[in-house]
Every structure is written in structure tokens, then in C-alpha cells.
């Protein structure tokens, strides 16, 4: 990656410019928001396949005799359950129980790879390195790692077309090293869209070769580059939390609906006591999903109202290209279950609470 005027360019930056992508500064990275339009790209991922450059994500490696023990202490999920090649969704919390970040943890032989949000990279690095047990080695591989997320029901066909057929046998949330387009890569069957797909980690020097090969070889399967704009609409349709919107250092896994990645029985970990105390005291709010009835789009920060009372706040909102209506997530007072309204500027949008995910037809594989 190269630094220019303070904004970091990924190895694929020139490809985005050549494709006339709309590029914005995202967490200090010059990233493509869209190429042709968010709705078009969203449908591409739901229907065939799209390729995201997500090289801005951070990759940390933990190794050494106490690496597992360090991980058990700083993350909420059960790291010991990770067999070689397994991937796990997890979180790091402060002693307060508030989220530092959500992340993926990969077990790769005797090493662990942590994949963290770009906007949290510096904060995460400080936290992890200041909580290493003796005999845990840390390495920040973010700048030497490019990441392409190939997502959509035709992803397997696209990967096979560029010599990645060996990855077709990967189960959901498993990873393996191998070759993509003749280049070394680490490939996992993971994603943030609700569709089947793969995340391809590679050397930045190989990123354009892999990107070009996927586009050329995947042409019969209608693969196209897609931007971060539809990454947000796709993840929200699935009810996946976004750090900075739906989870942050003021929220804990208890009210965020993330107790499934928080293993209280695994033993002590940072944040455990606060989360237990919060549950014992009784939750006062919880993260819910809602759909707008009629026209209008909810946005982050809008108030959620029931009758004359403000009962919560929208943490993520968008127009759902699949449902063709406004959808959102937000925290509401426990016990809120009737009709709600979203206070949007000078009017109120009628909304109804719905179960997540909003979109129930994704091709994503379940383990």
C-alpha cells in the first residue's frame, strides 16, 4: 500500500480509478463506494457475484506457546474450539463489557489471524499488544496483506474458473491456503453479505493479477467489481452489526444480540464480569430490526418513537434494494413490541418490528 496526501491507497486503487469508481476516504483509505450504482451492485451480489476490495481491513497474527491463552482472555468467543483451518466470528470488549471491535479469528496451524475493522486498527493494535501474555508473539500484517471478497451465488464458479477449484470443498467459515490464478493466497468461505462467497487474502503485489483474473475468468458468471456502498446495504439486509453504528464501546454483547459469540462458560475473559452483571441486573434495551411501512428511509441517529414516548434510537438504516423499502436496526427499551414510528426530520414514518435477517433468501452456507 502506498500513502499519498494522508489517504492510503490499496494495491487495487488503480483498478478502481480505471473502472471510474466513485472513491471516498473511508477510515483513512481511498476506497470505492460504487462503480455503477449501489442498487445495481447490490443485485449483482444477490444474483450472480461481485468483488469487493476490502484491503483496508487489518490482519494481526498471534503465535507462540501462550497465543491461545491470550486469545481466550481478550476475545469473547471460545478460541479453543478452533480446529486448524476454522474461522470464528468474535469480539473484543473492555472491562466495562463495551465493544472494542468485532473481528474474525482464523486458526492457521499453530498461528491465529485476527481480522479487524479498518477504523479500529490502531486502537485494536494498542489493546492487543498491551494484553499479550508472556510467550505470545504479535505481528501486524495489515500492510502486507490485500483482501478481495468474492461474494454471490456464483462465487464458486468464478473461483473455479481461475484455478481455485480446490476451494469448492471448503465449508462455511473454514479457510485454506492454495493458489488463485496461480498466486499464493489464503482463502476462507466467509463474508458480510448473506451470500455464498470467499475472502481471498494475498500479497499486495499479487492483488491486481488475482483481481484481473477473477474479472476475466468470471465473466461468464457475470462477476463485476462492487463497492462499499452495497456492502453496507447487503450486510444490513442480513442484520449483521457494523462497528461504529450498531455496536461500540457503550454497548455490550448482551443488548447487541451477540451472546452467541460470547461464551460465559469458557472461563474468565476481559469484559465477562460486566456482561454477567448486566444480564443479572436485567437488560434495559436491546437491538432490534424494523421495516418502514410505506415510503421513507430511516437513518443512523433518528429517534424511535412509540406513542408520545421516545423508546430508542436508529443505529443503522437504509433503503433495502431487495425488499424495496426502508429498513433499519436500533436499540429500543425492553418491552417495546407494538407499532413504532421513526422520527425523520419533520415527520414520522410508521414502522413494524421484524425478526432478523430482513432478507431470508441468501445463498450463504450454514456450517
Amino acid at each position: 500500500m502506498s500513502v499519498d496526501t494522508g489517504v492510503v491507497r490499496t494495491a487495487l486503487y488503480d483498478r478502481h480509478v480505471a473502472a471510474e469508481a466513485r472513491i471516498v476516504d473511508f477510515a483513512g483509505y481511498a476506497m470505492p463506494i460504487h462503480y455503477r450504482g449501489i442498487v445495481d451492485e447490490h443485485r449483482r451480489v444477490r444474483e450472480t457475484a461481485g468483488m469487493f476490495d476490502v484491503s483496508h481491513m487489518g490482519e494481526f497474527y498471534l503465535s507462540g506457546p501462550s497465543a491461545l491463552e491470550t486469545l481466550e482472555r481478550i476475545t469473547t468467543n471460545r478460541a479453543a474450539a478452533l480446529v486448524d483451518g476454522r474461522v470464528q466470528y468474535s469480539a473484543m470488549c473492555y472491562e466495562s463489557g463495551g465493544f472494542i471491535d468485532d473481528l474474525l479469528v482464523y486458526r492457521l496451524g499453530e498461528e491465529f489471524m485476527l481480522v479487524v475493522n479498518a477504523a479500529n486498527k490502531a486502537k485494536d493494535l494498542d489493546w492487543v499488544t498491551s494484553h499479550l501474555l508472556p510467550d505470545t508473539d504479535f505481528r501486524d500484517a495489515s500492510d502486507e496483506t490485500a483482501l478481495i471478497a468474492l461474494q454471490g451465488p456464483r462465487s464458486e464458479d468464478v473461483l473455479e474458473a481461475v484455478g481455485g477449484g480446490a476451494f469448492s470443498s471448503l465449508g462455511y467459515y473454514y479457510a485454506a491456503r492454495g493458489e488463485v490464478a496461480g498466486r499464493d493466497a489464503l482463502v476462507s468461505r466467509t463474508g458480510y453479505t448473506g451470500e455464498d462467497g470467499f475472502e481471498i487474502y494475498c500479497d499486495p503485489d499479487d492483488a491486481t493479477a488475482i483481481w484481473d483474473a477473477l474479472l476475466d475468468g468470471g465473466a461468464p458468471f457475470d462477476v463485476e467489481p462492487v463497492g462499499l456502498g452495497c456492502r453496507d446495504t447487503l450486510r444490513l439486509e442480513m442484520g449483521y452489526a457494523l462497528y461504529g453504528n450498531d455496536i461500540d464501546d457503550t454497548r455490550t454483547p448482551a443488548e447487541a444480540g451477540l451472546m452467541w459469540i460470547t461464551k460465559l462458560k469458557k472461563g474468565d475473559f476481559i469484559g465477562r464480569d460486566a456482561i454477567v452483571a448486566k444480564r443479572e441486573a436485567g437488560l434495559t434495551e436491546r437491538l432490534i430490526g424494523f421495516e418502514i411501512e410505506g415510503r421513507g428511509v430511516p437513518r443512523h441517529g433518528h429517534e424511535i418513537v412509540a406513542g408520545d414516548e421516545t423508546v430508542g434510537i436508529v443505529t443503522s438504516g437504509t433503503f433495502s434494494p431487495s425488499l424495496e423499502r426502508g429498513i433499519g436496526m436500533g436499540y429500543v427499551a425492553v418491552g417495546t413490541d407494538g407499532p413504532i414510528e421513526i422520527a425523520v426530520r419533520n415527520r414520522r414514518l410508521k414502522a413494524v418490528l421484524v425478526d432478523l435477517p430482513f432478507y431470508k433468501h441468501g445463498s450463504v452456507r450454514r456450517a
Partner: protein
Amino acid sequence: MSTAGLRFTESHEWVKIDGDNAVMGLSDYAQHELGDIVFVELPEEGATVAPGDVLATVESVKSVSEMYTPVNGEVIEVNNDLEDSPDLINSDPYGEGWLVKVKLTDAAEIDALMSDDEYEAHTKG
């Protein structure tokens, strides 16, 4: 698409004079900035508007934006096709994607607005 004869505002509205009336819409530059438009809130016909008033609210997938009137007048027609097809603003911003028709109080107010060449320079500045 030709913008000859259109007048533009710094906030990216266009105005086309049609007798005593002015048709208004959002510029091609504006629709590009907004991206896929999914909802449009139009004013009531008969409403009296003054410079700086919000004429319409335009919502895209990623953001919401307001359209202002640069002139005094009365709303005499709104583009109801936008209710079902808000994307007309994206596909044909100077034609089928028009938003509001206003009966002008003082047609001379238009003279203060930018020509298409001046506007093009403005968006590139």
C-alpha cells in the same frame, strides 16, 4: 444531454423558463453525487415559495438531500411520475426527471442565476 438555456444554482438545481413559469430539477452533477434515488417528497400544488425554501426532499440509498427554490412563486405542478419512478432523476435529470413547476412572481429573478457554462465551471472548481 443539452443544458443550453437552463439556469443553475450553486446548490445544483436547474431552472428552465417556460413563459411565466419555471420548471425546476436537479442537475446531472447532483444526481451523480446522490446516487440511486429511491424516494422524492414533493411540495403541495398551490404552495407559495420564497428563495431558500425547501422545495423537495430527495432520498437516495446512501443519503438525503434537499432541493431549494432560488425564486419566488407558486407551485402549480409537481412531477407525480417520480412517486413510482424516482430514478427518472438519475436517468433523465433535465427531462422526465423534472421535479416542480412554479409560476414566477418576478421572472427577472432568474437573471441572477448561473448559465450552463458558468455552472459547469462551478462544479469543476
